[in-house]
């Protein structure tokens, strides 16, 4: 790698000050975003005073003492979360490996299609699979019975059904996170293994998998936390079977009168323990060895020739896309053009009224614009913020950088619905009046998506050899220049993946938005979930399809724009 040295190397004092200034800003902003709401959340979990009185009139541990009453729900949550995480990681790792390390046909198209499940609001997937796999009315089961079968062929309302739906849609997150790491991997190690006679499967398991372990572990932690806070699938599929997880239980507790927010906060705070145990394991594993795959030695990303087997791999990827994108979207299109969604509709049941109603709602139109603007801002600022954070955690010599890693994981450790209360209380009493405005949503999104950005970018940073940066330093390049000329170009796949993930996550955000939206800052996903509660499955399907289409168009524009920019930039 050639590093061009700036004409006038900056003085070391200025270098240090720029670096430390940026780091200080990032640390202060992160601490404010995360610890400030956490303080209120912990305060609420200890609130045993008069209901709905702020600040609390008495403190105690009664809310935590009541948690064993909900042990079944806790167990349900852990079982579904573990099963779904394992399934999602298998989907994500396999598809990432196939699409980045093999010569599978249609690789580019498949890769783009693989991210589509993530564009889709989780409610859409849950709704679609509920329409397909409800024991009585599910389309698949109706078809099964019409063909002479008895009972239900599939039951999506079972715990395994819920885990399946969660994994199917989170699998694409795992794919993006692991794929970013695999793309940055020097293939020479895999080639060396094959030269000494290792089979392709053995190479994947013994070389590729260990090398991308940080990315896989990072994805595992993130996906696990996502599953822990997953709401839509458990709500749509679990409630009919009287199967509750922690998020659906919390939702009931905060929605009923009198709202039991202190108990919900205690439930949320108790999840910190689970999350931090996961993070501890991650840090232990990743600190033991080096995962560097990008060094000063040049490499060209090459893929393995899989022979005829590449068609099997192609079929596997196609099947995943079929189950996670084509089938759910087709089901929702089919349902959204009916008055009452059934498997075998009569001609007079078809209508376009649901789309007409969805598009006529003023609130939906303005919400859509707000969601897109917030998505763009959150993703752009978020990548900057989380990129610096990831760099500080993985590369700097900042004292207490380990604490910083735990700190950024806080928002992921608590279900969003509960964390939103902490944020609401915090920003309500903040001296600058931003509560109820667009800006509080931006802060909330930046806060809740810190873990997503940091995990995605950290995985790639760990693959970078320190010597590259040190080489620039020896040549007298400033910290900012090295970041611009060496680190960022090498991190490009990870940064783009993080931008994409944060953008989509922002547009489909639900939990934090419900409480923090103001009358002029409404966003779309709460409106869609609300439609499911209060209008009809068919109208909800139409709204969710419109949202997916809008996100899809925004993504295409982004991809085209970045491609054009990179071409212009040479």
């Amino acid at each position, binding site marked *: 790698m050639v590093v061009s040295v700036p004409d006038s190397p900056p003085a070391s004092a200025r270098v240090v000050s720029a670096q430390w200034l940026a780091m200080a800003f990032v640390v202060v902003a992160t601490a404010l975003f995360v610890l400030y709401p956490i303080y209120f959340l912990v305060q609420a979990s200890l609130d045993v005073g008069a209901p*709905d*009185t*702020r*600040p609390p009139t008495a403190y105690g541990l009664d809310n935590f003492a009541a948690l064993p*009453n*909900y042990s079944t*729900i806790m167990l349900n949550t852990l079982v579904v979360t573990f099963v779904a995480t394992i399934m999602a990681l298998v989907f994500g790792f396999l598809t990432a490996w196939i699409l980045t390390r093999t010569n599978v046909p249609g690789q580019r198209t498949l890769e783009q299609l693989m991210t589509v499940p993530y564009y889709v609001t989780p409610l859409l997937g849950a709704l679609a699979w509920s329409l397909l796999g*409800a*024991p*009585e*009315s599910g389309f698949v089961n109706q078809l099964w019975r019409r063909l002479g079968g008895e009972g239900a062929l599939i039951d999506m309302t079972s715990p395994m059904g819920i885990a399946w739906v969660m994994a199917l849609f989170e699998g694409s997150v795992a794919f993006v996170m692991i794929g970013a790491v695999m793309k940055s991997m020097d293939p020479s190690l895999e080639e060396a293994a094959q030269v000494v006679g290792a089979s392709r499967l053995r190479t994947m398991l013994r070389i590729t998998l260990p090398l991308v372990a940080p990315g896989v572990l990072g994805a595992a932690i993130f996906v696990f936390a996502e599953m822990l806070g997953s709401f839509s699938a458990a709500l749509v599929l679990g*409630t*009919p*079977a*009287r*199967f*509750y997880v922690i998020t659906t*239980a919390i939702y*009931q507790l*905060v*929605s*009923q*009168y*009198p*709202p039991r*927010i202190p108990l919900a906060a205690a439930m949320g705070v108790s999840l910190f323990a689970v999350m931090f145990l996961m993070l501890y394991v991650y840090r232990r594993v990743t600190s033991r060895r080096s995962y560097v795959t990008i060094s000063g030695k040049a490499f060209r990303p090459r893929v393995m020739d899989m022979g005829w087997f590449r068609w099997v791999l192609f079929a596997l990827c196609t099947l995943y896309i079929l189950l996670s994108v084509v089938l759910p979207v087709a089901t929702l299109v089919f349902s959204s053009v009916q*008055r*009452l*969604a*059934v498997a075998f509709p009569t001609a*007079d*049941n078809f209508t376009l009224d649901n789309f007409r*109603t969805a598009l006529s*709602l*003023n*609130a939906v139109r303005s919400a859509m614009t707000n969601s897109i603007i917030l998505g763009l801002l959150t993703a752009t600022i978020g990548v900057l913020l989380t990129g610096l954070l990831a760099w500080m955690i993985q590369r700097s010599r900042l004292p207490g950088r380990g604490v910083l890693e735990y700190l950024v994981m806080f928002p992921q450790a608590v279900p969003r619905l509960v964390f939103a*209360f902490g944020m*609401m*209380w915090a920003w*309500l*009493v903040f001296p600058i009046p931003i*509560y*109820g405005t667009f800006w509080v949503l931006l802060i909330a999104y930046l806060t809740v998506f810190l873990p997503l950005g940091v995990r995605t970018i950290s995985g790639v940073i760990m693959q970078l050899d320190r010597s590259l940066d040190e080489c620039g330093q020896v040549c007298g390049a400033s910290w900012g220049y090295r970041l611009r000329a060496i680190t960022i170009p090498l991190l490009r796949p990870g940064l783009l993946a993080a931008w994409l993930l944060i953008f989509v996550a922002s547009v489909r955000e639900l939990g934090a938005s*419900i*409480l923090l*939206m*103001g*009358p*002029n800052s409404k966003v779309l996903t709460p*409106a869609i979930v*609300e*439609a*499911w*509660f*209060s*209008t*009809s*499955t068919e109208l909800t399907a139409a709204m969710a399809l419109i949202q997916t289409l809008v996100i899809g168009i925004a993504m295409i524009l982004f991809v085209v724009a970045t491609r054009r920019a990179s071409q212009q930039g040479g």
Partner: protein
Amino acid sequence: MKDGNKLRAASRRAVVKGGIALAALPLATVFTKRASAQGRPVTKVLDFTTGADVAKAEAEGEFLFYTHDSEPAAAGILEAFSKDFPKIKGKYIRAQNGALFSKTIAERSAGNFSVDVIQFSEPATALDFQKRGGYTRYVSPQTDAYATEHLSNPVGDYFWVGVTFAGISYNTEKVKAEDAPKAWKDILKPIWLNAANVKQSTSGMQFVQWYELRKLYGDGFWKEFAKLRPRGFDSRVQLFDRLAKGDDKICALAEYAGYLLHKEKGAPIAFVTPDDGMPAAQLLNGVADKAPHPEAARLFVDWLMSNRGQSHYQNNPYLYYGSVRKDAAPMPGNKRLKDFKLLAPSDMDHFMASRDAFNKEWNAMLGLL
């Protein structure tokens, strides 16, 4: 000693004053109404009277409405109001009743007073909000069209903007008419094992049904029902959606409004009006204390109480709330509230005190505990 005498004297005066106030209580409503009518000039706008200063309301230009109602319902209400008053823009925030209450209380505790008009879906919440001084007392000139029991005590804090009521509904493809429940006790039959649905404890309507049927048939009623392992959902739409598709055979809390909405879509469902009456829950609406747009808020409440607003609440398919206004037009289906035998709590203190017991029993019944 001197201070002590003063205190006793003051206490005696207070007792006399209190006695007079107590004696005058039956007349308080009338006096308040008159005072209001005299205190604020009443003007006629469109076809209803208002105590709001319409010019000032238009100068305020906007107001914020907090409601438990759905997104399309809230949007529809404000759109209808805006058609009548195009210079006033209504904005809204909606949330489930409990979350809405928490959000509002948190905002007010922090000195944030942005809401103008607020609507809750159950009396316990409205009474709690009233006790916390959440309402601005405004006695609308429309008050005369409402019976005293449909207004807050004291008058002017909130009013019954609508009433929702529930019977039983069944899927006509899964249940023969002769097997369908005819009275509330029929929902206890073992044939409805794993086939009945109700609402979650988040529902004010569900609380009323639990309270009223318990009063009629004793504590054992719901214990028997629990053996059928009913399924609980958050909204009437979900209940009827499952019923229409055959996922459940009966809906044990079939709100008439939900039934109408799905029947219009051609769902194979039928509605049963039990002879023993139908539980009814009121929706309560009032002007919030320290409303930043007080005149627009008053105008909106007057409009809601008038036949124009009430007609919207009765005919909007996302609402279909019955009106308690004395001269209200019939609901869709050409029926008025008085045509139904409704069961509503009369002893509000006892009703409110039962909420915890309900939450515990209901959550346990639905598998939440």
